[in-house]
């Protein structure tokens, strides 16, 4: 949204701005073309739908993470919260109707998010440390209570969300699309959404301007917990089972899709559509690697390089800086 109010002085400047704003979209398009040329089956409908349902949990968690990152924060606990929610859903789902199980799981996620928000705003603990702490606490509790036992729910209605399809489109995929549209509209069009940008852009100015900054920041963490809860439900339903060790490294995928999309870790800039594009890039890469039979270890290497490249080029004009360095003209700052 930042660009919506920028000046429009000349076609050149407009073009330069657009290429900076929408560079990630171009990157995604190029990637899709490259991989579909190398392996045409990539574009097939069933493959695309598989990707969608595979990436549904990460994408859903990306929504909450985007909000938190735009406020200038960080949430390391979404992986543990996701596992907790999945286990709650599966454990309760063994004896109760799915609605009850899913609601309880999402509520559990929301509770963790609210606690995070409280620790970050009221106790003023650095978000990185605060959510690292809750991540350990939540992960530890989940393991202690379940002993990492797998809860299996072989109950048809429970797995419908994860496995059934509407006209070939998985329910989980539909859920992702609906949630992204809502989340994007909320961020771009509501007073709360603009306040999210405001607190990330300048917390003190926002506070003095009369924004209830603790409420805005706290609610972003609450939503992050909520989306982790929803993601946990989706996974439990997809797998028809859950255990505490789920999603140990998932938080990195979630952060990656947000950052690769171009939402700034420094806060105040970003968008939901960017996270959607980030998911697209990561999902396309991963699926492409599999189709092209690239070793999993190398996949990690390439992913790592892409994260660094994305941050260097998207955030703060790193590429321009590098060009200047190479041209021997010295850094500008």
């Amino acid at each position, binding site marked *: 949204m930042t660009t919506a109010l920028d000046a429009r002085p000349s076609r050149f400047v407009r073009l330069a701005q657009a290429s900076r704003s929408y560079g990630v979209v171009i990157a995604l398009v190029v990637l899709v073309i490259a991989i579909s040329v190398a392996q045409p089956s990539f574009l097939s409908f069933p493959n695309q739908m598989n990707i969608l349902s595979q990436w549904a949990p990460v994408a859903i968690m990306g929504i909450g993470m985007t909000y938190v990152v735009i406020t200038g924060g960080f949430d390391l606990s979404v992986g543990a919260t996701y596992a907790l929610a999945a286990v709650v859903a599966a454990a309760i789902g063994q004896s109760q109707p799915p609605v009850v199980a899913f609601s309880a799981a999402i509520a559990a996620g929301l509770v963790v998010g609210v606690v995070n928000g409280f620790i970050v705003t009221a106790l003023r603990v650095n978000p990185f440390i605060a959510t690292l702490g809750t991540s350990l606490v939540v992960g530890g509790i989940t393991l202690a209570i379940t002993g990492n036992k797998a809860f299996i729910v072989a109950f048809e209605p429970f797995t419908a969300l994860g496995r059934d399809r509407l006209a070939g489109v998985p329910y989980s995929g539909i859920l992702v699309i609906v949630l992204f549209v809502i989340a994007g509209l909320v961020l771009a069009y509501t007073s709360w959404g603009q306040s999210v940008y405001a607190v990330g852009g300048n917390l003190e100015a*926002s506070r003095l*301007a*009369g924004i209830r900054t603790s409420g805005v920041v706290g609610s972003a963490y609450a939503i992050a917990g909520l989306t982790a809860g929803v993601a946990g439900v989706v996974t439990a339903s997809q797998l028809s089972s859950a255990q505490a060790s789920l999603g140990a490294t998932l938080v990195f995928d979630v952060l990656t899709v947000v950052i690769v999309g171009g939402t700034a870790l420094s806060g105040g800039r970003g968008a939901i559509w960017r996270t959607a594009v980030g998911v697209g890039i990561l999902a396309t890469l991963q699926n492409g690697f599999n189709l092209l039979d690239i070793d999993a270890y190398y996949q990690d290497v390439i992913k790592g390089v892409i994260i660094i490249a994305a941050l260097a080029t998207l955030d703060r004009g790193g590429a321009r800086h590098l060009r200047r360095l190479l041209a021997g003209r010295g850094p*500008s700052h």
Partner: protein
Amino acid sequence: MTDPRAVAPLALEVTRLSKSYPGVNALRGVSLQVRSGEVHGLVGENGAGKSTLLKSIAGAVPFDSGSVRVLGTDLVGGNPRQAAEAGLAMIYQELTIVPELSASDNVHLGDPPRRFGVVDRRRVDAQFREAAARIGLQVSPRAKAGSLSTANQQLLEIVRAMVSERRLVIMDEPTASLGPEDIGRLHAVIRGLRETGHAVVYVSHDLDAVLDICDAVTVLREGEVVESRPAVEWTKPALIRSMLGGVELDSAGAGESTTTAGDAVLSVRGLRAPGVRLDELDVAAGQIIGVAGLVGSGRSRLLRALAGALLIDEGRCEIRGEARTWPRSPAAAWRLGIAMAPEDRKLQGLVLDQSAAWNIALGDFSGAAGRGPVTLDRLGAGVRAAAEAMAFSASRLVVAAGTLSGGNQQKLMLARLMNRSVSVLLLDEPTRGIDIGAKAHVFTAMREIADSGRAVIWSSSEIEEVIEHSDRVLVVAGGRVIDELPPRSSPHDVLTRIFDHQRTHDVHSTDGEPAL
């Protein structure tokens, strides 16, 4: 008369320099020549392009067209290192010393003389002593730079320029944080630099200082050079006329209340917060209340406490006759119609990445919510009207707040308050760092706000200014109001009151006779 300087080589030659930012032509074909052994003044309103010119010369930003030649070297633009190597020393308003390092280490920052690959400490200190002695800076080479006074830190930057043999020194607002005595010292140093054939560019809002020290003065307005003349041909009024370009300063109408004080809009009783004590204050509609005090007197804390930005210990308030508990947050204070424009616009006032219009709306986006993307149109007529009321140019509403001058940023802060229903406006140092023209706008706006039935409480470190533009003056020391002076008191009265208070009161005592 033949001036030897007229034939001295050119130290700085700027030719038809242009630079634009999105939506703004910051510099439009500026040419400027400064000879060795010359002190050249550069003046202009905020937003006239002074900062952009300096940054372009120093390589902090690239320029679009034209040329900059420093001591015979053509600069490529956007390369501070090349500018430094050519012999340019840029002394910014925000000093660039490293507080934890010693004075002499600061002078050699990044490139100390070495012996066998190790820093040659004796030579570092010797060079420092020699250069410091030349400009009369009496500081031990091993003194921590952060422990030096602002004036000495500034001189340290000049020592740095001398040690590195840079013969073009540009100073941006060097007197901004100096007292009269230190200004005298600085000017003596600058005269010394002139004698040794250095060229100095002196940029300042302090026109007296400019006329005192400079050989020639160039006036910038709206990104163009208006006039450049020898200093002897300038007078202060002539400079002001040239800077403003036909805009008459409306100083007569700004200081007088045209309405009699109305009903109380805010009554404060027994306000206590850490470092703040205000026993009784009644603010009437239509009043401008000035807060005067020395630096560190707690002016800002007092305003912040009133704005709900400090956690207070106790206190009650009445808003238009209705008793209320004290607002616990700025958000709560806004709802009661009390709002503040903080002193530090960049750190506490604005979201610099976002547009001017967005910053006016900051805190209340309800007008823009739910009706399409956040565009200027959607932010609404209120934002446009508030900007217009503050004489903020409509074409700049879409520009990022961070690229605006200090004066324009201040207008945004006021426009934000105008855009919402606020009955008591708290303005902390609204005139800090802005030029005469922008100040006049601020004073006019304050009076208009008061005349519309609201009240203004404001502070300034310039006591004369507070007295001239307020209906009532509160004298603050140690975080409390120690006295209220009638209108048209002299600055002398204020200072006398403050010094009397300091003599008779233990600074740390929290109890005592009622304030006011």
